[in-house]
């Protein structure tokens, strides 16, 4: 095979052919099966050299010295774990802050109201006096113990009088 075609094929595969060169090669390739075989051999060599270059880069061969690729970092290095742990701690703190933040706009739920009512009722039945001596509006806990309903219910209940010892006639 003439050296001329070796050069022309490579020029074409590099996108360097002029219009005249491309037309001449188109004609020659159409007519000559041997030239087509050479053409696909060069295409195959081109692909194989690309693969060899990739392999050399990952294998750390002499190409590293030619084009100065930085050495690949190991994923399992202690520093990378430190960064990972710090990032995880930050994410946890942010998540805790967001989740523990009170939601002011959330409407009161019926089950909470029912719980409050049953608690009031139970306290009233036990006739326990409020522990807090503060007015009810100053304390959320005290306000639970002083609703009007509770007071009415307690007024209706007969209050047992303490039994005083009757004086014995001497």
């Amino acid at each position, binding site marked *: 095979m003439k*050296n001329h075609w*070796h*050069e022309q094929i*490579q*020029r*074409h*595969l*590099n*996108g*360097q*052919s002029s*219009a005249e060169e*491309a*037309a001449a090669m*188109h004609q020659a*390739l*159409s007519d000559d*099966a041997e030239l*087509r*075989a050479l*053409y*696909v*051999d*060069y*295409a*195959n*060599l*081109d*692909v*194989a*050299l*690309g*693969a*060899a*270059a*990739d392999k*050399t*880069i990952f294998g750390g*061969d*002499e*190409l590293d*010295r*030619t*084009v100065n690729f930085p050495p690949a970092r190991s994923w399992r290095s202690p520093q990378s774990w430190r960064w990972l742990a710090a990032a995880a701690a930050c994410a946890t703190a942010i998540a805790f802050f967001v989740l523990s933040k009170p939601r002011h706009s959330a409407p009161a739920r019926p089950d909470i109201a029912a719980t409050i009512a049953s608690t009031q009722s139970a306290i009233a039945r036990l006739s326990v006096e409020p522990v807090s001596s503060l007015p009810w509006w100053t304390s959320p806990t005290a306000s639970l113990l002083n609703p009007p309903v509770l007071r009415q219910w307690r007024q209706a209940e007969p209050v047992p009088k303490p039994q005083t010892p009757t004086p014995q006639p001497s």
Partner: protein
Amino acid sequence: MHDLSDQHHEQFLRLFAESEAALRTFVRSLLPLRGDAAETMQDVAVVLWQKFAEFDATRDFRRWAFGVARVEALKFRRDKLRDRHVFDDQLVDKIAEAAAAAGSRHEAQREALEACLQKLPGSQRALVLAAYAKGTRMDELAAQRGQTAMSLYKLLQRIRQALLECVQRTIAQEELT
């Protein structure tokens, strides 16, 4: 336990891996730049997977894949290479036949290349691998070496020709023994 989709996927990967190098060579022979061929090859792989459900398992996968690759390469040329000098459909068919027929020869050439690269002088080996490394620009590589891009292209042409002749000799010797 693998379900049907896993088996389907494994079957595709096995067939694709067997034909990938030949497909790359074929696509490369239809497109005048390495980057274009690599981009098209990505599309080919995606389309092959998308259409794999339609593939008749009794047929030759490589032939079917070549058909898909041909369509994708022509699509790329039609969309992006309007001003380039490209082959007509008849020549594309002939090149496809040549690439398909050269399957085992190309495999042997790829295997022989490693030894032939080792036979090159160290500076030439480093140069050709640097030229084929991803992201390398020829003008920058030429400037690093203190030469013109044209003289670098000429040098690479001679190295490639030497490599091709080396792999062809190696295969001929192996066939004799």
